[in-house]
Structure formats: structure tokens, C-alpha cells
């Protein structure tokens, strides 16, 4: 028994579930549900559909590089049955799953942190630049106390000449 992965959304396709499409060049496309099948028929690109795993991986929403991804693989060779190996594997699955879910939640936490800093920076920028939304520019010109003092920026001569060359 094999638990396949959906072509579109990369979720697990258990036996007896979903639908399978075999193209006339013998390529197999498996879909976990009609939603994915319909999206395929509409010729949508899974990399551009936001709810798929492919999109989330590509855009850094999910963890991409991790050692726990090395365990689950498509093994295209027969394995001789061994009771001990099976038992150990079943035990390992649980621990590996725990480790992975913890790392994934950590990844999401880290991702959220970056957002906060970005929002802060945007807010500071808005405070600096968008005073005209609160006070009309004409009033600001009359009363300079409302705006931030102008900062002198030194521009070196070397930079200036370089720009001229370009």
C-alpha cells in the first residue's frame, strides 16, 4: 500500500480516495479531491495558487530545508520484511513527526516576527512622510514646528563623478 501525494496540492491521497488521470503519454496525475482535479482541468499552475503546498514552499511560508524531510521517500525497490525494522520505524515515525511539527511551528513564529518589524518600519515612515494627510501643506509651511527638522546629508565627490560616468 502506498499513500500517494496529490499532484496539485501535495496532500496525502489514501487508497480509495480521490481520482487519478492517466494522460495519453502514460503520465499519472493523482488528485486528492474534486477541488484539485477541477483546478488541474482549468490548467492552473499550482505554484501560483496560494493554498497549495508548492506555493507555500516557494514563497517561504513553510519550512523548506530540514533534516526531517529526508525520511519519507518514494522507495522504488522491494524491501524484505523484518519485524524489528518495522517496529523501529513505527516508533521513529512518531518522534520524527513531533520534531517536525515543532520545527514547523518555530518557523512560522520566526516568520511572524519579521512581519512585526516591517510593520513598525512602515509606520515610522508614514509618520515621517505623511504629515500632510493630517495638516494641510500650506499650514506646515507657515508653522515649521509641526515637521521634523531637515537633515543635512553629505554626498562625497567620488560618488558624484561615478554617476556622471554612468
Amino acid at each position: 500500500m502506498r499513500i500517494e501525494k496529490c499532484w496539485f496540492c501535495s496532500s496525502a491521497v489514501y487508497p480509495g480516495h480521490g481520482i487519478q488521470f492517466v494522460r495519453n503519454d502514460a503520465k499519472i496525475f493523482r488528485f486528492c479531491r474534486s477541488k484539485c482535479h477541477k483546478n488541474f482541468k482549468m490548467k492552473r499552475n499550482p505554484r501560483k495558487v496560494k493554498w497549495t503546498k508548492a506555493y507555500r514552499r516557494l514563497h517561504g511560508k513553510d519550512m523548506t530545508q530540514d533534516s526531517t524531510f529526508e525520511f519519507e521517500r518514494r522507495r522504488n525497490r522491494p524491501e524484505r520484511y523484518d519485524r524489528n525494522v518495522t517496529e523501529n520505524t513505527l516508533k521513529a515515525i512518531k518522534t520524527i513527526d513531533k520534531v517536525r511539527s515543532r520545527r514547523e511551528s518555530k518557523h512560522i513564529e520566526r516568520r511572524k516576527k519579521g512581519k512585526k518589524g516591517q510593520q513598525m518600519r512602515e509606520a515610522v515612515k508614514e509618520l515621517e512622510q505623511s504629515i500632510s494627510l493630517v495638516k494641510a501643506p500650506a499650514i506646515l509651511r507657515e508653522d515649521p514646528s509641526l515637521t521634523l527638522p531637515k537633515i543635512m546629508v553629505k554626498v562625497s565627490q567620488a560618488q558624484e563623478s561615478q554617476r556622471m560616468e554612468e
Partner: protein
Amino acid sequence: MGGKCPHRHVKKRRYSHKTARRTQFLLKGADMVYDALKKPDEERKPLPLDEDLPGMGQYYCLHCDRYFANVSVRDEHFKTKRHRKKVKEMLGPAPHTQLDADLASGMGMPDNGPKLS
């Protein structure tokens, strides 16, 4: 079932029912087109004569999987927005495959075992 879709000015896209969209299903998938384009020019076979196709099947666009009646129509097609969009798409990364789907779901590369000599 299926009726007329609003705001469809192109006749081909005007109806939502299956018979009207039949030609869309016959189009090659993006990955097939990509593979065909990757082939070097020497490997490409000359287009076979087919009297059922427009222009005896001699004027073909690889990107859009379409046959044209003559050279001028085909060259006109090369200038269209849809064709250029396809060309741009095919220049980018390879289309999504089952392997990509597997990797995205947290699987490693396939394990084929030791190489048999």
C-alpha cells in the same frame, strides 16, 4: 447544462459547456510543451503531412500546440500577445510535476536503491 457566460467577447470562450471547451482539453500540457522545446533542433522530425489539419499540418506552433493554414498566418500568430506570453512562460522554470508535488509535501528525493550494473 451550462449557459452563456457574461463578458465573453471571444467566441471560443463564450460558452461554459463541455462541448464548447472540447478543444481546450486537446491542448498539450505545459510539461509536454516544455519537453518538446528542450529537444535540440536536430532531433525534431519534419512535420508529417496530414490532410485533416489546416495547411496539411505543415505550419505548427510548438508553444501553443496549434496548426496554421500558411506561413503568413503563422507568423502573424507569433506576434500575438497570447503566443508571446506562452514563450515567456516556457523560458522560465520547468512546469510543475509530480516530483515537485512530492518534494513540496515534505518527501525526499526518490530512492531507487543501489545501481545495478
